[in-house]
């Protein structure tokens, strides 16, 4: 027994414990999977929900924010599936292979499962139940972390996508994982696994829309040597959304991730990234558009475990109302990871006196031949720029919109895929147009 004094469990923690105990027998997967769940649950049980005294969660006190745990999601009915038909509008124009999930459950009949050489798609529920080899090899192993939100996800993971892209395969179309929700508020624990083998190329997009549900999703991704992956995540959720990306990158690989949060009430996007092979390049970028009392937390741990890799992190947030944006970026360069080249930049644009932006870049460097830089700024729109635009006849709101567009444009323009770049910019412009 640990001597550490544990606070009394909150009602949400108690409800999660009961939910796990009640569901344990019926959750997919026996044997090794059940053991994985059990072990993860013990970790969660010991730590409880992450709270402000956990450094990584300092600004997003889940224990305080999560008053109650909603009941676990049940499989969606026909009405819920029908309602989800038009979900994922943000990437609809992109001719993606669309895979639909409602309240976390895979809906194969509304998904595009047209065969494609080198591509295997399945549901996580099936894969766990069968103790699928790919799942056995990777789930819970891609990036081991003590994070208790991830532990909770592992305990209760029910469904998600399992995608395998065979070596050398270049996917014809982007894959769009569409996460929609039914009218019934529930808690969903979504777990996905994407393995992109050596020299393969894939574009993966994820869109999340929900009502007041509680979503805890985790994506484990393995990028093989020489592989190239673009990953986009758009979150427009009304409830609680906690997302974890656990990523391992091989040698001479390339990846770019882009996260857009707009009209999202309460989001925690956390990434755990390991450069495990030499000579890889990675970019993590994102734009957060917040208003009202929205809260978006972007936290990342980038581990350079192999040398000669470059990473770029660039995040912009625009804050109106009483919103709160958090950015915490930690870059760790291991002792032998020489010639690491990283640059992290985070900028917040405050449109209101009551908005709050917290920026916390961190570097932990154990190698001596590296180039690592970071910067963080927070400020209001420049009144001189606004006056210049207005003096030419552009009104107050339009002048602000142009300047905000310019501010986020710098990051959005880093997206090399024209379709995704335009889709994300369009969503940002829609947000700007609905600004009061």
């Amino acid at each position, binding site marked *: 027994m640990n001597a550490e004094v544990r606070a009394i469990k909150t009602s949400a923690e108690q409800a999660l414990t009961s939910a796990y105990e009640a569901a344990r027998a019926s959750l997919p997967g026996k044997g090794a999977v059940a053991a994985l769940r059990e072990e993860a649950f013990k970790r969660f049980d010991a730590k409880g929900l992450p709270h402000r005294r956990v450094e990584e969660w300092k600004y997003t006190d889940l224990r305080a924010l999560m008053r109650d745990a909603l009941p676990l999601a049940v499989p969606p009915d026909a009405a819920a599936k029908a309602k989800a038909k038009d979900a994922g509008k943000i990437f609809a124009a992109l001719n993606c292979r669309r895979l639909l999930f409602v309240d976390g459950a895979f809906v194969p009949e509304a998904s595009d499962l047209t065969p494609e050489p080198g591509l295997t798609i399945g549901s996580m529920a099936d894969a766990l139940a069968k103790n699928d080899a790919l799942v056995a090899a990777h789930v819970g192993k891609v990036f081991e972390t003590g994070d208790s939100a991830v532990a909770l996800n592992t305990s209760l993971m029910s469904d998600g996508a399992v995608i395998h892209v065979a070596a050398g395969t270049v996917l014809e179309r982007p894959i769009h994982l569409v996460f929609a929700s039914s009218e019934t508020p529930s808690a969903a624990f979504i777990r996905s696994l994407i393995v992109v083998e050596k020299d393969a190329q894939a574009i993966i997009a994820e869109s999340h829309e929900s009502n007041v549900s509680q979503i805890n999703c985790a994506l484990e991704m393995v990028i093989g040597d020489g592989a190239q992956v673009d990953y986009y995540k758009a979150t427009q959720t009304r409830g609680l959304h906690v997302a974890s990306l656990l990523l391992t990158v091989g040698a001479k690989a390339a990846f770019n991730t882009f996260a857009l949060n707009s009209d999202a009430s309460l989001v925690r996007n956390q990434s755990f990234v390991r450069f495990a092979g030499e000579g890889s390049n990675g970019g993590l970028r994102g734009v957060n558009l917040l208003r009202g009392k929205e809260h978006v937390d972007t936290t990342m741990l980038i581990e350079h475990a192999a040398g000669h890799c470059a990473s770029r992190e660039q995040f912009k947030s625009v804050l109106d109302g009483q919103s709160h944006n958090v950015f915490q970026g930690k870059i760790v360069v291991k002792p032998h990871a020489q010639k690491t080249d990283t640059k992290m930049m985070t900028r917040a644009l405050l449109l209101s006196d009551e908005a709050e932006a917290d920026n916390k870049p961190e570097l932990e460097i154990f190698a001596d031949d590296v180039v690592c830089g970071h910067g963080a700024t927070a400020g209001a729109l420049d*009144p001189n720029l606004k*006056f*210049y*635009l207005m*003096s*030419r006849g552009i009104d107050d709101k339009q002048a602000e919109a*142009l300047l905000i567009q310019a501010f986020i444009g710098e990051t959005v323009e880093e997206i090399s895929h024209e379709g995704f770049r335009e889709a994300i910019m369009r969503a940002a412009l829609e947000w700007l147009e609905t600004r009061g």
Partner: protein
Amino acid sequence: MSLLEIKNLHVEVEDKKILNGLNLTIEKGQVAAIMGPNGSGKSTLSYVLAGKDAYNITEGDILLDGESILELAPDERAAKGVFLAFQYPVEVPGVATMTFLRTALNAQRKLRGEGEYSTPDFIKLVRETSAKLGVSQEHLRRAVNVGFSGGEKKRNEILQMAILQPRLAILDETDSGLDIDALKTVSEGVNRLRSPERSMIVITHYQRLLNYIVPDVVHVMSKGRVVKSGGKELALELEAKGYAQYTDEAA
């Protein structure tokens, strides 16, 4: 009716008095030079006319076509034909020059109840105007003023003026930072825009610019008011004798 009448204008910035009972009238089609030593309030006058906030107008009025514009926002003044060519044009990263020009032109036209320019008509207008001013297509593609030299920025101001076709153009130290060739190009651009329907206020510290943009009248400012007015020969006199006599006079 005069186009612009400034009556007994008193302006403070952070409790410091800058304009001190300034009176000035600009007739339709007139080109008026405003000269004066540093700190006489020339740039403040230009900002106040364009509607920049942070200036506290404690007394007086500014009338355009006989109506007060003090309560109008900068964009509303622009739609009424007021244009300020900035002494230090700001860089606007991320906003392409073409987008900026088009947004501005259409916003003004909309406020005036006029139709928007079609894309081909707009592109034609910008092409022709920029060619005359020696502004390259490359500059039009870039973000507004970003990476432009001092001269290029000033040229971009005149380009905007040529496209927006104001009725009252205020040129604030348009000559500062220009070499002789750039000064000629910019002046030619300004002179092409002279018309009986357009008035200009040319603010300058030196007489040099007035060799190229010849004014109808010259006003001398000192300590926040106009202390002397005369013909273009007044500028030459100032060049020869300096501002000392006026600063003493106003003291």
